[in-house]
């Protein structure tokens, strides 16, 4: 069943158009990866889906409901979560970051869900009153993931989760995502690190703000275009 569907989406920054007629689908329980070189439009696409950038043409539906005119907080209330490259508020404590992840939930519900997340991320639990800025890069990513998981989203958008991380921390992030995927979460990940490709069921290759190629993971792995644009070969 289609969870997220984009048809002819165009977007950009003010007068500068970045995305041109994007068609994309994400089905329930699926992990979809967005591939592409720098400036291909991956981040712009995720920011358009979450609503920070305007969808100037085309439609975006979530579970069949049009969301392209809704503000970000309303999209998040409908079950989308977005993890940016930064992912956290460095000047707030770990606990405050996690509580903000469930901003629209009741306090009791956030506390209940936070407890489960602290069990999943014991390193965060031990330092919950520390500032996020005091965490290592890997721990910050874990906090970013914990923050978006509080809302138990139907669809999780992730922008370059490996950005700025040493390989050992990238492995940790992948392990956590595997747990989320096993739990039935739907993921749309924009990533340049090849280590994330095995997580994906399908993928899209963006180039110059357009979808150049889409298909199952095996098709993408075999594609010369992907090798050229993504692996840099």
């Amino acid at each position, binding site marked *: 069943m289609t969870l997220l569907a984009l048809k002819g989406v165009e977007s950009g920054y*003010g007068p500068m158009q970045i995305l041109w007629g994007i068609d994309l689908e994400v089905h329930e329980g699926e992990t979809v990866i967005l591939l592409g070189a720098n400036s291909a439009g991956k981040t712009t696409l995720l*920011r358009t889906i*979450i*609503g*920070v950038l305007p969808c100037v043409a085309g439609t975006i539906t979530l579970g069949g409901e049009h969301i392209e005119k809704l*503000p*970000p*907080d309303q999209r*998040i*209330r409908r079950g989308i*979560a*977005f993890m*940016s490259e*930064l992912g*956290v*508020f*460095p*000047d*707030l*404590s770990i606990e*405050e970051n996690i*509580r*903000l*992840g469930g*901003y*629209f939930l009741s*306090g009791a519900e956030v506390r209940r869900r936070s407890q489960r997340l602290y069990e999943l991320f014991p390193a965060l639990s031990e330092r919950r009153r520390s*500032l996020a800025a005091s965490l290592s890069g890997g721990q910050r990513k874990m906090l970013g993931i914990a*923050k978006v998981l509080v*809302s138990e989203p139907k669809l999780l958008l992730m922008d370059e989760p490996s950005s700025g991380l040493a390989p050992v921390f990238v492995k940790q992030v992948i392990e956590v995502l595997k747990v989320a995927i096993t739990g039935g979460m739907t993921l749309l990940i924009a990533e340049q690190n090849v280590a994330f490709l095995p997580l994906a069921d399908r993928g899209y290759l963006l180039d110059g703000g357009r979808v150049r190629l889409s298909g199952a993971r095996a098709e993408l792995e075999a594609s010369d275009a992907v090798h050229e644009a993504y692996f840099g070969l």
Partner: protein
Amino acid sequence: MALLEYALVGGILYGVFFSLVGIGLNLVFGVMRMINLAHGQFIMLGGFGAYLLSSHLGLNPVFGIPLAVAGGIVIGWPLYYAVVPRLQRSNDPEMLSFILFFGIAQVIEAVTLLVFGADQHSLPDSALGSGNIGVLGQDFPDSWWVAVAVSVLCIGGLYLYLSSTRLGFATRAIMADRDEARTTGIDVDRVAAIAFVIGLSLAGIAGVFVPYMVGSVSPSIGGGLTTTSFAIIIIGSLGNPLGTVVGGLVFGIGTMLMQTYYASWSNLVPYALLLVIVLIRPSGLLGKAVRSA
């Protein structure tokens, strides 16, 4: 020695009050990234509110406090939604906000001038107690202590709001990264509008005590209060509301020391401190280190 004690104790009292004077401006800047150039005029409105209650209705000027809060809501909420989202969609929100808030300041000043005239208005000392309270052998009027007590309550209340409530976390999140706050699901405009209302209300509450701490209230007092507030928040830390307390104390002690020893130079204090801080530590005395407080 007695002079020095007087200057230090008086400076702390004066500084705590001026922390309240500046804190609303810093809160609004932190959340909206815009300087409210009408901040001093909103303080002045608070002063005239207290004057009206006292001189026309015979009420105690402290009833100006709930009036300031009501005024903050009635003016701040519609003003925010009428102008701020539009400004933020423009190509140059900072410059446009300067012009807009400058215009609002001029309108407030002109209307107040029409209604109250250009004269200075003061309030009866007895309304807040006619005695003195001494510390270290130095006596200060009851009205100063009441103003300081209200300032401490307001600043403490703001601290609790920012550090212990969900809206407070959201406010700090917006101060830290507006875009990240939006993608976290925070209704940024609603939270910022609440912060704007709080900022105006705090300005109005400070205004209630301006006739006691500054001597009088008049329509022309707003511009100077905006400049002083701006200096205080730069000294403390721009964008960090609680840094205002440090800025206020530095300003208060500096002013009282100058008034005690070199009275004719005391008006230069905020500007001299501003220049020194900008040259030595542009991020303010607290810088980013206590941004999370």
